[in-house]
């Protein structure tokens, strides 16, 4: 099922001068999969993700995202992906509605479509009484949920999530994962980069990067078996310590 | 004391490791002085002018000779018709036209009054203004020399502006202003930034929790900048004396003391800003908008206070820089002693005490 792959990476490499940040990584991600892209700070996961979303050119190797080449068709990629990071998600000084309208606008949605989407989204998140509140005044967990919905506004094939639930309270965090499962169930591919190992437990498959290389790639269950560990955290510790 | 010394050593590390602030600290004064001294000069040299002489008599000729004899102007051409004025301006070489009315000499003798029209190319208003000033200066000079021989003196317009700078050397006017700006910039902006940087970094939290007293933190922040500002003041004075041959008429010691006073005023303002601002960016904005603009616009450095609207004249009184400029102009250009500037000094001193008091009161030993 070649068509089923929405991300195909072959020997992707990025050098900064003499320093190899990402060293010939190879992996595929299937449609509707929740893929965890793990690694310590500085292991190269941010650099790798930047190449996949088309804002950094690979030094060598190739990668196709949503069927487009990252080196030559970056603009097409951007239209087909959504992105959400914990550091920046929404504008705190705009209201919920203004944020949705703004992000809908930059992805070229028509006004009618934005309106329809806004209503759907607000209803789904139960925000009917909060549409005119400034995003900055909402609890962190709500913001993350709105941000995730906003990244799905233009119905992208793949959503990239950067440490989406760090620091969020346990209940909201689970609501967040339920939202992720829901969109994965609809066929959206979810690509999660994180160094929180408990976020990794929720993924269908995970890869672990150490020093620019992918050192492990499998389902959390099999990785735990392979490394004889109880949690992904232990798997990571064993891998990183060699 | 050991704690305090450790703090100051740390401050110097910060200053010397931050290439950007180092550049501002030492590059700025030199750049500004040279810029004002050489580039943004109000002086003119051999400016080409044209003459339209309707009378062609003894007096007009005498004036024309006087003007062309000065090093400021050279007469490019004589024109015959009013309509030529526009043509010569359009050619662009000529910056001013002197237009003598008919029967110039006769009118001086009969009516004690005669007119010369000075038409300047105001596309460059500064030069135009300077040309106007220079020409009137030459005319006055001429009037004065004439009046000595004549019983009934004819009209004189007094020109007090040039008394203390007879050659109209603009760099002399700029040095006090530039010095004020530099001291203000280095002292107020740099201290406020360096204090807010600690807030932004979160290190202020640790400093507050340490046994270091708040006053030690403040003074420790300020001492390095007093030191640097004094060096800057010296650099500026030395530059202006040696490069621009600026005379310092009054006591250098008094100049030094007054500068230290102003530096402390500025530092107090810097601390005050840092008690309000929470980020380096706001500190910088407040320093620029709240301090630098008034220094440039309201201190009398560029725009004479006397020609400001009444309300701005009043506001200018609360700008410390205004008083400092008066003081150092007095010392540098007029050579006056403390007996002539004690009032200004006292005002500056009062302001300093006020700002220090206010910032000590506003300085928080907690985060709120």
């Amino acid at each position, binding site marked *: 099922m070649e068509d089923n792959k929405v991300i195909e990476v072959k020997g992707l490499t990025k050098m900064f001068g003499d320093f190899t940040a990402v060293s010939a990584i190879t992996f595929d991600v299937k449609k509707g999969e929740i893929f965890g892209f793990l690694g*310590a*700070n*500085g292991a190269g996961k941010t650099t790798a993700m930047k190449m996949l979303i088309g804002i950094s050119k690979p030094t060598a190797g190739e990668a196709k995202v949503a069927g487009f080449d990252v080196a030559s068709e970056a603009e097409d990629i951007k239209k087909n992906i959504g992105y959400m990071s914990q550091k920046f998600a929404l504008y705190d000084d705009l209201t919920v509605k203004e944020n949705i309208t703004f992000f809908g606008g930059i992805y070229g949605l028509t006004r009618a479509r934005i309106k329809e989407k806004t209503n759907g989204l607000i209803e789904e998140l139960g925000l009917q009484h909060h549409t005119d509140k400034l995003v900055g005044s909402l*609890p*962190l*967990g709500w913001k993350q949920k709105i941000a995730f919905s906003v990244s799905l506004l233009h119905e992208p094939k793949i959503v990239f999530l950067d440490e989406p639930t*760090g*620091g*969020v*309270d*346990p*209940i*909201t965090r*689970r609501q967040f*994962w*339920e939202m992720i*499962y*829901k969109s*994965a*169930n609809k066929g959206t591919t979810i690509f999660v980069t994180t*160094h929180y*190992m*408990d976020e990794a*437990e*929720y993924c269908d498959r995970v890869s672990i990067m150490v020093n620019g290389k992918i050192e492990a790639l499998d*389902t*959390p*269950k099999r990785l735990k078996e392979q490394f004889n560990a109880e*949690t*992904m*955290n232990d798997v*990571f*510790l064993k891998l*990183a*310590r060699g | 004391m*050991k*704690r305090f*010394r*450790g*703090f100051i*050593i*740390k401050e110097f*590390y*910060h200053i010397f*490791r*931050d290439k950007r602030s180092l550049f501002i600290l030492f590059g700025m004064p030199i750049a500004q002085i040279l810029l004002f001294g050489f580039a943004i000069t109000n002086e003119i040299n051999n400016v080409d002018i044209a003459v339209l002489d309707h009378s062609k008599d003894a007096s007009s000729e005498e004036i024309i000779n006087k003007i062309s004899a000065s090093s400021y102007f050279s007469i490019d051409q004589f024109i015959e018709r009013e309509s030529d004025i526009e043509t010569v301006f359009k050619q662009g070489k000529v910056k001013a036209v002197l237009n003598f009315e008919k029967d110039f000499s006769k009118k001086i003798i009969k009516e004690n009054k005669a007119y010369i029209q000075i038409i300047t190319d105001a596309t460059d208003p500064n030069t135009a203004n300077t040309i106007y000033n220079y020409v009137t200066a030459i005319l006055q000079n001429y009037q004065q020399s004439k009046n000595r021989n004549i019983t009934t003196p004819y009209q004189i317009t007094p020109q007090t502006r040039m008394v203390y700078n007879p050659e109209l050397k603009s760099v002399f006017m700029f040095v006090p202003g530039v010095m004020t700006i530099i001291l203000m910039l280095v002292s107020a902006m740099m201290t406020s930034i360096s204090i807010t940087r600690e807030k932004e*970094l*979160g*290190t202020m*939290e*640790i*400093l*507050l*929790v*340490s*046994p*270091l007293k708040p006053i030690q933190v403040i003074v420790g922040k300020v001492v390095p900048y007093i030191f640097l500002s004094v060096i800057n003041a010296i650099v500026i004075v030395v530059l202006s004396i040696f490069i621009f041959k600026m005379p310092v008429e009054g006591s250098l010691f008094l100049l030094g003391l007054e500068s230290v006073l102003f530096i402390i005023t500025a530092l107090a303002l810097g601390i005050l800003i840092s008690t309000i601002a929470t980020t380096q960016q706001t500190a910088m904005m407040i320093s620029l908008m709240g301090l630098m603009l008034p220094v440039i616009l309201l201190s009398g450095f560029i725009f004479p206070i006397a020609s400001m609207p009444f309300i701005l004249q009043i506001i200018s009184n609360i700008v410390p820089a205004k008083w400092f400029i008066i003081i150092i102009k007095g010392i540098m250009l007029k050579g006056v002693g403390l007996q002539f500037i004690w009032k200004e000094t006292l005002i500056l001193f009062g302001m300093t005490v006020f700002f220090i008091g206010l910032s000590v009161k506003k300085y928080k030993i*907690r*985060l*709120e």
Partner: protein
Amino acid sequence: MSIVVDGISKSYKSLKALNNISFDVKEGELFGLIGPDGAGKTTLFRVLVTLLFADEGKATVAGFDLVKDYKIIRESVGYMPGKFSLYQDLTVEENLKFFATIFGTTIEENYELIEDIYVQIEPFKNRRAGKLSGGMKQKLALCCALIHKPTVLFLDEPTTGVDPVSRKEFWDMIKRLQLKGITILVSTPYMDEAALCDRIALIQDGIILQIDSPEAILKQYPKLIYNVRADNMYQLIQSLKLYEHSHSVYPFGEFVHYTDKRTYFNPNDLKLYLAEKLLTNITVEITEPTIEDAFMELAK
């Protein structure tokens, strides 16, 4: 008692950051404050290290009153704020030296206390702090907080944003410090770190949900928890939520943690129900609760 907190409240405008917080920390105890971002952990720390005034309530640290004796408290506590708060443009050694001097001591005088942490960063002592990796920065910050030999140590989210390896190392260091008799109050949003503390307070929205040892908190968990698993995660969660007897349904990694309302619950009933919903590869197994389960049950 090393720390006694009695009815502390603190508000920012309309937000109640701390609501009637009370707890004690015994001498030499490792006490964890566990809660998500925005729970009020940092505010509580700032109140306890005398950086903020509480609106209500009182507290003593090392036997000294927060308001009256704030100067003594400031000399006797070590505080490591959540954000990395060292001078990035000073080297490792200069930072340490600076903090030693402002506390009126020297590195040599208290070297014994920081030795086993400092040796790990000593090879980089001439490197600027800003150029260190996340884990290294935390170690340096800990050294700086310890340099004056505090009796009580406040560590505000020391492991946030730090990778798992450095996190583990950091906790090992905290444990060793505890052995030297220092009382430690540490906050963290990671529930899995709770088990490493002697006692913990679970905190959310400025309210303490429970205070006890991690073991006791787990023991008090009122229900039996089942790990449920099936091929389609989303369908599974939806079906479980619709199940009339369900008490709580929380995704938990590759499983769903399920609790039932009934006293007598037969897992086979649930399996049958899920099979009816066309789910495949269903497993239902009893499992142990975690601190996260306890937290969610209390916060519900």
